[in-house]
């Protein structure tokens, strides 16, 4: 384990900074979300917006980071790019799951159902989630690091095609889900009441800081795993330390 131990460094400062920022912003975001005025038609269920919307935006950012890092890997064959791509997609899957879950809970309160097959956004998000679960399964299935990095880079690029489909599905199909109110295709200002924009902004900042923290931690863990795997393959086998019988021991003198 000597080779691996040499590469284990103390926790980088960036992780501490991102973690502290995420924690502080979470507290602020939570306070602003709870104290925001009650929404006119949706009531208390509208507070789920402060988790649902930031989770989907940060999921897009994470999967986009995965795409850029995957393309970077194919261009430069940098192992770090592969680790960043994998870490970003893993966190993106977590955030997509959170998006689905909060969307379903919100739907139960506002639409009266957990799931609506007519909702293009909901169905396309579930498809996206299962595709990226497949990505994670492919990653686990390949042992060789180079082959894994190459195949996952290809899949990371192909999979991202679905992200704009998910986002614009509410415009392309007749659906129950409301149209985009933050990232709008005409780049116009938000259609949301100003009283909700500030808590949403705080929650989004908290989610972005949390994303940065999780990414940094996941990349660090992946680096340590790679170092351990390298040391396991390069370290001397136990049998190699035992040589043929030689005179010169305690009784041989």
């Amino acid at each position, binding site marked *: 384990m000597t080779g691996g131990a040499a590469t284990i460094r103390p926790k980088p400062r960036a992780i501490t900074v991102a973690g502290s920022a995420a924690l502080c912003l979470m507290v602020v975001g939570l306070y602003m979300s709870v104290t925001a005025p009650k929404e006119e038609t949706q009531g208390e269920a509208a507070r789920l917006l402060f988790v649902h919307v930031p989770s989907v935006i940060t999921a897009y950012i994470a999967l986009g980071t995965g795409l850029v890092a995957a393309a970077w890997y*194919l261009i430069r064959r940098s192992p770090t790019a592969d680790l960043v791509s994998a870490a970003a997609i893993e966190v993106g899957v977590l955030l997509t799951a959170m998006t689905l879950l909060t969307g379903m809970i919100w739907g139960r309160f506002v639409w009266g159902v957990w799931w609506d097959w007519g909702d293009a956004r909901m169905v*396309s998000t579930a*498809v*996206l989630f*299962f*595709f990226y*679960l*497949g*990505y994670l*399964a*492919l990653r686990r*299935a*390949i042992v060789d690091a*180079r*082959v894994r990095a*190459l*195949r996952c*880079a*290809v*899949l990371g*690029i*192909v*999979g991202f*095609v*679905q992200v704009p*489909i998910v986002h614009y599905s509410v415009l392309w199909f007749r659906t129950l889900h409301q149209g985009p109110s933050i990232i709008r295709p005409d780049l116009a200002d938000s259609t949301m009441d100003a009283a909700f924009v500030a808590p949403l902004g705080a929650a989004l900042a908290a989610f972005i800081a949390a994303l940065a923290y999780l990414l940094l931690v996941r990349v660090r863990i992946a680096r340590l795993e790679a170092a351990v795997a390298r040391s396991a393959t390069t370290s001397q086998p136990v049998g190699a330390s035992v040589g043929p019988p030689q005179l010169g021991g305690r009784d041989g003198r």
Partner: protein
Amino acid sequence: MTAGAFWRQVVWVMARDLRVELRGGDALRLVSPFAALALILAPLAIGTDTALLRRIGPGMLWLVVVLFGMTITLRSGAHGSGPVRDLLTLSGLDPAADFLGRSLAGAILLFGAALVLAPLMIVLYAPEGAPGWGWLALLAIAGVMALGLLGSLVSTLVSGLRTRTALGPLLALPPAVPVLLATSRGTDSALSQRGSLSWLLLLVAMNLALVIVGVLLAGPMDETTR
């Protein structure tokens, strides 16, 4: 490499895969009867309400083609093994030509399977409406081509893996959702004498996107199989 030489390679790879199928017969002799059995069993599970079966017939056909078609397009043929790949590379086979050739072969086999299953669906489910044959043919060709391209792409990604039989469909089915939607809804429209242009355009766009992605990434993908 000239365009002529490239397309000759595409045809050569396609002919090789079809010859392997002709000699082995997995797609038409094993997978098609299995898919036909699914068409027979489905009404037993969901109920034998004739009106319901009339409505879901075209969708069932395409669901079966997509699900069982994955078994055909994800098959690990002679091209899958390392030494054969090395030999083909040394012979100057362009990875993009290999990708397109395998996709075309997969699409032809899927089209054959769909031709076997369509009459059975008509007999068992008796869908209503007078078919617009032109639209149906175009939808079927564009649909099986998209599934062939997708299967070829994913089969390279999972080649040589112990878990490829489960992992392949998990990776290929989510992107196949637009194909399922376009073919089944398009067939519904064609049966009711409405045009299926929007669904056909969706399939054409998907085919174009898959060809571009597949051809651009054929090199790196080929590298991982050696």
